[in-house]
């Protein structure tokens, strides 16, 4: 099969006997061998496991058993997901000394149950405290559209693997933007669900009160396929909501004509390069979204998310900072040390502000069904780039990358990032929905894809 085939196309070919799952897995593994030395997306492959799983899918088909919706579909996971038999790296050197995971993360078990075939673990920024996709221990993830450029992070390998055609979809995590940023830089569809929707059990944490998991793919349909297979309560994640699964795939094609869609103004219109605003304008125009809306105190929300991240992250890593400080990525270590020094009263105020801000933003959804906003203020910067010119001033690059994603994940709203295929590089736009309404964001993303406004561009060469 074509390496660019969608997850849905692969599953259909396997179910109908036009392709064997083993042949699909072997071809994908061969492609990883060929391209990963350049993309640096995979940090480990699970070849034996993949071929065994694919063989079991083929055996089930031969026996006439019903196959799952992801039968024979290759996928991979950010290396903070537990994979049985492997140490969970979370992008670090320190975790290489951890015991191998005794079993897979919940989401991997659910995808396997749907017939998907895990091919390996993916590069990421250390301990997910990253927006670039660079990693001092493993080398940077490289953007398939221009390998001198960042994938974005922290789910950098996830972006590179999917945009590079190595797998049709892969899993990432998002605390402040780590699914939406690489989706934007790599030109992919990314789903950051409502906080508490998808299980985080068996993933290495960063900021417990902000961590989400979710899929990235080259189409809305594939996002929905993966998302539907992973939904459902998980008692092993105390944050995972006790809600029934709400399958989205059957809803994707529903008309969006009745939806009230607004464009975020104010904060979301400044601090960006022209490509971000061009992408938003294209999406808004296609959706006939003429109404502007102000998300109140978004700058303060971003500030509060940063404070909570620095301090919760520092608390998580305090023992490692005491005993293994020299083994951290120095830039991560220095941010964590700084987070450890922040007085607790600031953190409590940030959490109080969070409650207030949530109430204000939820009021907006009484009058709109979705909000459109840029995902990143610019397309993928060069690997190693430290600063960027914004509004006439040279500013530190890294913190700017998440300015539009942080105020949204801060209150756990579901978001689909859609890729707008600008030249020379794609850039993403956030479709933001009320809590538990991933279906709205995914329906809008699908409509934009149908209108050819959103598309995951295939890298040249």
């Amino acid at each position: 099969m074509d390496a660019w085939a969608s997850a849905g196309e692969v599953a259909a070919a396997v179910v109908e006997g036009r392709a064997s799952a083993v042949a699909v897995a072997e071809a994908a593994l061969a492609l990883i061998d060929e391209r990963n030395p350049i993309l640096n997306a995979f940090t480990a492959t699970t070849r034996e496991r993949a071929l065994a799983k694919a063989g079991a899918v083929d055996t089930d088909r031969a026996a006439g058993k019903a196959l799952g919706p992801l039968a024979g579909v290759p996928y991979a996971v950010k290396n903070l997901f537990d994979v049985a038999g492997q140490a969970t790296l979370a992008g670090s050197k320190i975790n290489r000394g951890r015991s191998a995971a005794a079993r897979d993360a919940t989401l991997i078990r659910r995808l396997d149950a749907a017939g998907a075939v895990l091919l390996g673990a993916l590069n990421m920024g250390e301990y997910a405290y990253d927006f670039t996709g660079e990693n001092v221990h493993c080398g940077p993830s490289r953007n398939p559209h221009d390998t001198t450029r960042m994938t974005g992070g922290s789910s950098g390998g996830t972006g590179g693997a999917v945009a590079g055609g190595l797998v049709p979809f892969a899993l990432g995590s998002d605390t402040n933007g780590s699914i939406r940023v690489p989706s934007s830089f790599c030109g992919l569809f990314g789903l950051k669900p409502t906080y508490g929707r998808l299980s985080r059990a068996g993933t290495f944490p960063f900021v417990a009160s902000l961590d989400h998991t979710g899929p990235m793919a080259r189409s809305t349909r594939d996002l929905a396929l993966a998302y539907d297979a992973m939904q459902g309560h998980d008692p092993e994640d105390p944050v995972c909501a006790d809600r029934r699964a709400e399958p989205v795939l059957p809803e994707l094609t529903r008309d969006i004509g009745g939806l009230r869609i607004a464009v975020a103004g104010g904060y979301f219109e400044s601090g960006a390069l022209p490509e971000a605003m061009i992408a938003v304008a294209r999406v808004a125009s296609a959706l006939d979204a003429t109404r502007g809306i102000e998300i109140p105190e978004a700058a303060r929300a971003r500030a509060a998310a940063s404070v909570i991240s620095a301090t919760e992250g520092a608390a998580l890593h305090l023992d490692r900072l005491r005993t293994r400080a020299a083994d951290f990525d120095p830039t991560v270590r220095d941010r964590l040390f700084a987070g450890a020094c922040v007085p607790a009263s600031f953190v409590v105020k940030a959490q109080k502000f969070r409650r207030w801000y949530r109430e204000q933003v939820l009021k907006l959804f009484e009058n709109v069904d979705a909000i459109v906003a840029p995902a990143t203020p610019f397309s993928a910067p060069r690997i190693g780039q430290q600063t960027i010119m914004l509004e006439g001033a040279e500013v530190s690059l890294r913190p700017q990358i998440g300015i539009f994603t942080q105020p949204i994940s801060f209150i756990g709203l579901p978001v689909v990032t859609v890729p707008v295929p600008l030249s020379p590089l794609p850039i993403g736009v956030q479709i933001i929905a009320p809590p538990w309404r991933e279906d709205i964001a995914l329906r809008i993303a699908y409509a934009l894809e149908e209108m050819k406004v959103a598309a995951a561009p295939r890298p040249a060469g």
Partner: protein
Amino acid sequence: MDADADDAIDKLIDASAVALTLPIDAAWKPAIRANLEVTLRLANIVAEFELPDEVEPAPTFEA
């Protein structure tokens, strides 16, 4: 940041290192100070926002 502010942040880092038994190498301190300055600036942006006493914090957030 002026010299006095730098000095105050350095003292906060030193005090935190003692309180939390953190082995902070002197060579790391300028970068830690730079990060802490940013985080404290952001923290103050939040802190100066007036909220009623009754507003509940959301450490375990539910959407």
